[in-house]
């Protein structure tokens, strides 16, 4: 797989332009010299001016960076998107059904379709959630499914991000920037809008308010504060929805109900879109040393007096070890074949598979089960012998701590780099909202590995983003 030339989304192997990219190719050809260079520097200025920054972990506190933005949009045809969104909808429904089951009767374990040990002894499993009835039965309300493409009709799900995924503000701001930078390009084709997201987010959150709350529910966004790497996004979403942006100390629990401290005293809170990890939500239930959370919050949640979005404990469904069972999960709960494929994954606890992995590690991708953000992983073909050996040792020591996948030849898109326009690998994170219904914003966030040949698209590892266009018929 790694040897063949990757699928390019703009150009066919013979150099002709694929249909969805016709207008873009024409437009690129018409651009005078330096036009893209200018656009690129304008884009940087726009993002900095708006304060669309993220903090880089490990660097000096308060250091803010602008995520690189590529001015050439990525384009998805209408029928490609229809197929993708059907697969996504199926997947998020099945995962929510799975979560409900796992925290209630655990039928799927009783049926022996997933090993019990894998769930009940998993650190992402949250026993405190057992028997709790979340509003509308929904656990994961906001999901970002990472999808990669390797051929015209071949899409794979890389990860289901069910723990309040980030990046949606970039999807929205990339579009804003693109409309400022290249308005004429939009006039040449019909591009599905993405600015419906904030309204749909609000609707989704309202639809899962506790049954007992009357009138328009009071929605807040709970942030760890301005030093969090995604603070911009937290404030952006609160602003777009007209919700109050709170930090832990702004909230308190009294008599099993949640209130915020306002200028005129306590005010009841119904729905909390929390951007704080499970562990930090409530020092009385989870980590006692947490300063970010709200003491007593979990009990208020259990009592049905407030809705937490996403629910605690959703991590059990996007655990890398559980991931391999998602096709099984779709079949078990929906009685359908999964429309979207998983990347084939090797299980290192199986001796035969492990030996094969150790022998072929140079061609494989190794991921730590609980790692994220591109950390704790190794891409075989782009790593040296020392790295291979290091990961061999790691796998032998803790085979259950790693999953291994073939190195996928991620599709490439034309990208503006120093040397001009060149193909770079991309992935896609569409954003899904689950409440009274499933709402998927057309497109999503395209992340692009700006380094030549690199397959790592994470912004913390030098990745950038692109505006993502879903064409309308």
């Amino acid at each position, binding site marked *: 797989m790694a040897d063949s030339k990757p699928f390019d989304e703009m150009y066919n192997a013979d150099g002709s332009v694929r249909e969805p990219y016709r207008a873009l190719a024409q437009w690129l050809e018409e651009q005078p010299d330096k036009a893209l260079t200018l656009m690129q520097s304008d884009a940087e200025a726009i993002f*900095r*001016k*708006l*304060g669309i920054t993220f903090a880089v972990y490990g660097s000096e506190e308060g250091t803010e960076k602008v995520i690189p933005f590529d001015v050439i949009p990525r384009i998805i045809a209408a029928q490609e998107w229809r197929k993708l969104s059907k697969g996504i909808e199926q997947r998020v429904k099945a995962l929510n059904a799975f979560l409900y089951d796992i925290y209630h009767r655990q039928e799927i374990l009783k049926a022996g379709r997933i090993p019990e040990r894998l769930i009940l002894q998993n650190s992402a499993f949250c026993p405190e959630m057992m028997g709790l009835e979340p509003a509308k039965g929904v656990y994961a309300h906001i999901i970002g499914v990472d999808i990669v493409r390797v051929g015209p009709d071949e899409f794979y799900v890389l990860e289901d991000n069910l723990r309040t995924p980030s990046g949606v503000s970039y999807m929205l701001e990339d579009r804003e920037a693109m409309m400022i930078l290249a308005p004429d390009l939009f006039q040449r084709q019909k591009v599905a809008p993405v600015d419906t997201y904030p309204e749909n987010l609000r609707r989704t959150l309202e639809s899962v308010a506790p049954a007992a709350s009357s009138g328009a529910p009071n929605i807040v966004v709970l942030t760890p*504060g*301005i030093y969090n790497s995604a*603070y911009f996004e937290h*404030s*952006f979403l*609160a*602003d777009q929805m007209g*919700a*109050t*942006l*709170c*930090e832990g*100390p*702004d909230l308190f629990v009294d008599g099993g109900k949640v209130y*915020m*401290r*306002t*200028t*005129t*005293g306590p005010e009841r809170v119904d729905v909390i879109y929390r951007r704080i990890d499970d562990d930090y939500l409530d020092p009385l239930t989870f980590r006692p040393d947490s300063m970010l959370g709200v003491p007593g919050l979990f009990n208020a949640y259990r009592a049905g007096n407030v809705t937490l979005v996403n629910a605690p404990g959703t991590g059990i469904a996007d655990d890398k070890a559980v991931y391999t069972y998602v096709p099984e999960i779709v079949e078990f709960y929906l009685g359908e074949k999964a429309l979207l494929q998983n990347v084939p994954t090797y299980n290192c606890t199986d001796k035969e598979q492990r030996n094969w992995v150790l022998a072929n590690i140079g061609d494989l991708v190794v991921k730590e089960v609980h790692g994220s953000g591109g950390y704790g992983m190794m891409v075989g073909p782009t790593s040296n012998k020392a790295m291979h050996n290091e990961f061999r040792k790691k796998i032998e020591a803790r085979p259950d701590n790693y999953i291994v996948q073939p190195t996928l030849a991620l599709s490439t898109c034309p990208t503006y780099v120093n040397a001009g326009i060149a193909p770079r690998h991309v992935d896609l994170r569409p954003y899904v909202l689950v409440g009274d219904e499933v709402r998927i914003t057309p497109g999503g966030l395209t992340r692009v590995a700006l380094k030549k040949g690199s397959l790592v698209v994470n912004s913390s590892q030098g990745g950038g983003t692109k505006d993502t266009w879903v064409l309308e018929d």
Partner: protein
Amino acid sequence: MLGRTAQNLYWLSRYVERAENMARLLEVGYRMSLTSRREGGASEHLISMMQAAEVDEDFARKGRPADVDTVAHFMMFDPDNPSSVFNCLMAARTNARTVRTAITGDMWETLNAAWLHFSQIKPRDVRGAKLLELLEWVTHLSHEFRGALLGTILRDDGYAFLQAGNFVERADNTARILDMKYYVLLPRAKMVGGDLDIQQWSLILRAASAHLSYRHVYHDRYKAHNIADFLILRPEMPRSLIYCARFIEAQVQTLAEFYGRQPACNEAAASLRAMVEGTTMESIFAHGLHEFLTEFIARNNIVSTSLSESYNFH
């Protein structure tokens, strides 16, 4: 609105106003030091300017001589000076970032762009004409921010907290400028000011951005009595104590109406305003200008603390 949000709004606009006042004070100190004819005069002017800004002790701790370069650097860029323009702009922007959802995009972008610009300036490069240029930039920034505020924000509680912060800071500043030089404003047997007095008066007026509007109000040469009157009792002067006090009272009144209750800060604001309402300069001089200003600053502080208690700043 969250109590914390109200607090951030209040301080955000206090810091913008403070940055502007610091720039004005420094400009005055700088001009005075250039024209000082006496040995050591330049240093004295700079120090009394820092006294007005209440940062003279912080400066003394640095153990450096007070010359134009050291003082300009201290007032503009020094992180050890709590009121340096650097610290004011950083605090304003951090507050703005924290309440990003409670202010408009225009207000945020003004502060964000200003911070990005300012934080890239190399202090070494800022001397002479460059310094004056940068000081002007700071005052323009303050105008731009206020313009964005007036032009774009909803007239609700957030607006009132922002405006209250702005004018509490301004009242404090005007009172301090007057107090720094109160003795040159006192009535004396010889009513005609000498050159030194004129220079001092002009310093006071410039620091309050009032040296030109003075002429329009009084059609007269600089006179101590008029200058004190202008900065304390003239209701049309937007930096006078009476203007600020009335304005602050109007903001807390707006809040009281918005929330439908009369908390303790309303009384504090009324008491501040009462000090400057229905009095005359003669009466103020008779009771002591310095005592009057000290009392005013204290009451202004009470407005600030009582506002934070009344509206759950935390």
